[in-house]
C-alpha cells in the first residue's frame, strides 16, 4: 500500500526509483482502486466497533455501577465496594448462589457422562438409526429455550412431580447433553480406530480400551465441554425459571424476582461477580486444549 500512495512518501521527490512508472500509471486510476486490496476496509471497521459498543455498553454500566458509593443507578459518585459487602451479607442471595453452583455442578457431571457416551455411540452406530439419532440430538440446540422450559414444566405437572432443585437439575442435564455431544462427536470421529484395537491387541478388554486409551485421548475436549456446560447452566434463566420449586431458587431466578420489587445495586455486584466467573470459565474452556499441547480451543465452541 505504501509504495503506491505518493502522499505517504513526501521525502523522495528526486528519486523516482524503479517502480516510478508503475506508480504514475496507478495514480491515474480511480481513488478506490489506488488504495488497493490491502487497504483497511473502513466500513467493516465501523460496524465492528458499533457492534462491540452495543454489546458491551450495558454490561460495562453494570460493572461500573456495582462500584458506586450511592444507591443511584444513573449518577456515579465514588468508588466503593459497599454493594459487594451487602451481597455477602444477604443470606437469601448467598443461598441462591450456592444452589446455582450445586445445580451447575450436577448438570455438568450428568450431561458430560451422558453426552460422551452418546457421542461414542453415535459415531460408532452404523446405519440409519445412528444418523437419525444424530439429527434428533441436534433438536434441543435449535428449540427456543422457552419452549423447552414450558414443555418441561408441563411434563412435571403431568407426571405429578413437585418442582424442586431435582427437577431443575434433570431439565438442565437434558438440555446440555446436546452441547457435549456436538463438541465431542467430531473428536470421536477423528480418533484412529486402530488405537483402540491396539489396546485390545495388547490384552485390554473393550471397556479397558475405552477407559485407558479412548477417554484420555478425548480428555481435553471433555474438560472443555464440562467447563462450558457449567457456565451455560450457571447463567441459565429460562429453563430454571420454569422448573424451579420453592427451595432456594437458582441465582438467575432469584435476581429476576428481586428486580420486580425495585432494582438494588446489589444486583449489579452479583452481575459483575457472575460475569467474572463466567469469563474465567470460558477462558479455561478455551485454554484447556492448549494446556494439553494441542491447538484449537476456539473450534471447540464452533463444534468443529
Amino acid at each position, binding site marked *: 500500500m505504501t509504495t503506491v500512495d505518493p502522499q505517504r512518501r513526501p521525502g523522495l521527490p528526486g528519486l523516482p526509483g524503479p517502480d516510478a512508472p508503475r506508480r504514475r500509471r496507478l495514480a491515474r486510476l480511480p481513488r478506490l482502486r489506488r488504495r488497493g486490496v490491502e487497504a483497511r476496509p473502513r466500513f467493516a471497521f465501523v460496524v465492528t466497533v458499533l457492534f462491540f459498543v452495543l454489546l458491551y455498553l450495558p454490561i460495562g454500566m453494570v460493572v461500573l455501577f456495582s462500584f458506586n458509593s450511592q444507591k443511584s443507578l444513573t449518577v456515579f459518585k465514588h468508588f466503593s465496594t459497599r454493594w459487594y459487602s451487602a451481597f455477602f451479607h444477604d443470606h437469601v442471595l448467598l443461598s441462591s448462589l450456592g444452589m446455582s453452583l450445586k445445580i451447575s455442578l450436577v448438570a455438568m457431571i450428568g450431561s458430560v457422562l451422558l453426552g460422551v457416551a452418546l457421542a461414542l455411540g453415535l459415531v460408532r452406530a452404523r446405519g440409519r438409526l445412528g444418523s437419525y439419532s444424530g439429527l434428533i440430538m441436534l433438536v434441543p440446540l435449535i428449540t427456543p429455550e422457552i419452549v423447552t422450559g414450558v414443555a418441561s414444566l408441563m411434563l412435571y405437572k403431568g407426571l405429578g412431580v413437585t418442582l424442586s432443585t431435582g427437577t431443575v437439575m434433570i431439565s438442565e442435564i437434558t438440555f446440555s447433553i446436546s452441547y457435549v455431544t456436538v463438541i465431542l462427536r467430531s473428536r470421536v470421529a477423528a480418533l484412529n480406530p486402530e488405537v483402540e*484395537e491396539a489396546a485390545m491387541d495388547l490384552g485390554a*478388554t473393550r471397556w479397558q480400551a475405552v477407559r485407558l486409551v479412548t477417554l484420555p485421548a478425548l480428555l481435553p475436549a471433555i474438560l472443555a465441554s464440562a467447563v462450558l456446560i457449567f457456565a451455560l447452566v450457571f447463567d441459565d434463566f429460562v429453563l430454571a425459571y420454569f422448573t424451579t420449586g420453592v427451595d432456594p431458587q437458582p441465582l438467575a431466578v432469584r435476581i429476576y424476582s428481586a428486580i420486580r420489587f425495585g432494582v438494588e445495586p446489589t444486583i449489579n455486584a452479583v452481575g459483575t461477580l457472575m460475569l467474572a466467573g463466567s469469563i474465567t470459565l470460558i477462558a479455561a474452556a478455551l485454554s484447556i486444549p492448549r494446556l494439553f499441547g494441542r491447538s484449537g480451543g476456539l473450534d471447540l465452541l464452533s463444534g468443529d
Partner: protein
Amino acid sequence: MTTTSSPTSPAAPATPDTPAVRLDRITKTFGQDAAAVADLSLDIAPGEFFSLLGPSGCGKTTTLRMIGGFADPTAGTILLSGQDVTRLPPNKRNVNTVFQSYALFDHLSVADNVAFGLKRAGVPREQTRRRVAEMLELVQLPAFANRKPRTLSGGQRQRVALARALVNRPAVLLLDEPLAALDLKLRRQMQIELKQIQREVGITFVFVTHDQDEALTMSDRVAVMNAGRVEHCGTPEDVYERPETKFVASFMGTSNLMTGVYRSGAVQIGGGPAITVGACPQIADGAEVSVSIRPEKIWLSDFEPDMPRARGVIKDTVYSGPTTTYLIELAPGVTVAALEQNTARSRNEDRWVGGESVEIAWKTEHCLVLV
C-alpha cells in the same frame, strides 16, 4: 493370554511340527459383496518370516485382521500353535500387531506405550521396567523412553510400535504394511533391521505388504494373494522365478507376458515370431498359453551356442542408473523388454539406440509357459 485353553481342541500339545498359524478354509464376506477372503488355507511354521503379498483389495489385510481377532471369519477355523482361536477376542490371543498407522497411545510416554501390554498381563513392575528397557535397546530408542510419541519421527514411531508389540513375546507378530508410511531410504533400512530383529527374537512374523521388493527381500516364504485367494505360496525365489499363475508372473516384478499357441516346444505368438520354450509335456499341442520371460533373462549380446533367438527393432531405451531397459519390437504389436546391467565392462558406445535392429536370445529354462 497364553494359559487360555481352547474349548474345541483341549489337548493339542505344540510340537515343533505344529504350525504357528493354521488357517483352515477361511472365508470372509462383508454383507452382499464378493468374498474378501475365499476358502483360504495356509500353514505358517514357527519362527518363519511369512509375507502376504498382493494388490490392494486382495484380502491380505482382512486375513491378518482375522488372525489378530479384529474380524470374524464367515467360515473356517484359525489355529494358533494348534489351538482353535476362531472365536476368541484379540485380548485372549497370543498374537500382537504392528498397525499400519502405528496406533500409538499419544497420551502415554514411549516407555508407557511399550509397557502397556505387560501391565495388562500383570507382569511385576520391576520385570516390566527391565523388559521395556531391553526392548527399547533392541529398537535403538533407549534415549526416547520419556518422550511422547508425537515428538518422534515416522521411523522412530514405527520402532515404538514394534517394541510395544514384541515386548509381550507373542507367539506370532502380525505386521500390517508397517513400512508403507516411511520414505524409500528409511524403508530399505527398516527392512534390514526388521529382518535382523526377527532373527534375534525368533518370533513368527506375518507381514502384509503390497510391495513385492519388500516381500522378496525379507521373507522366508511369500503368499501372493489376488481376489481373496492365494495364487502362489512359496519361497521368494519360487514365486519370482517359477510363478504358478499368470497373475503372479505379472505381479512379481516386470515380465514379458505374451499369448500364443503352443506347438511342440514353441509358442507361436499371434502375428509374431515363434518363441522356442522347450518341451512342455503337460501341455497339449494347439493349446492357448501365455509365455513369460523376465527382462533380465533376455540376452542382447555374448550369445551362447544353440540359444533360441529372435530379431527385433529397438523402440525405446530407458536408462535408470545401474540398468538400462530396452523395448524391442519383435513384430507389430509384440514388444519385449530386455534389461542390461550397466557394468564396468559395457561402455557407453556399446549401448543400443532407438531404431537399431538387434537380435535377442534366451534360454528355454527361463521361459515360463502358463496356461
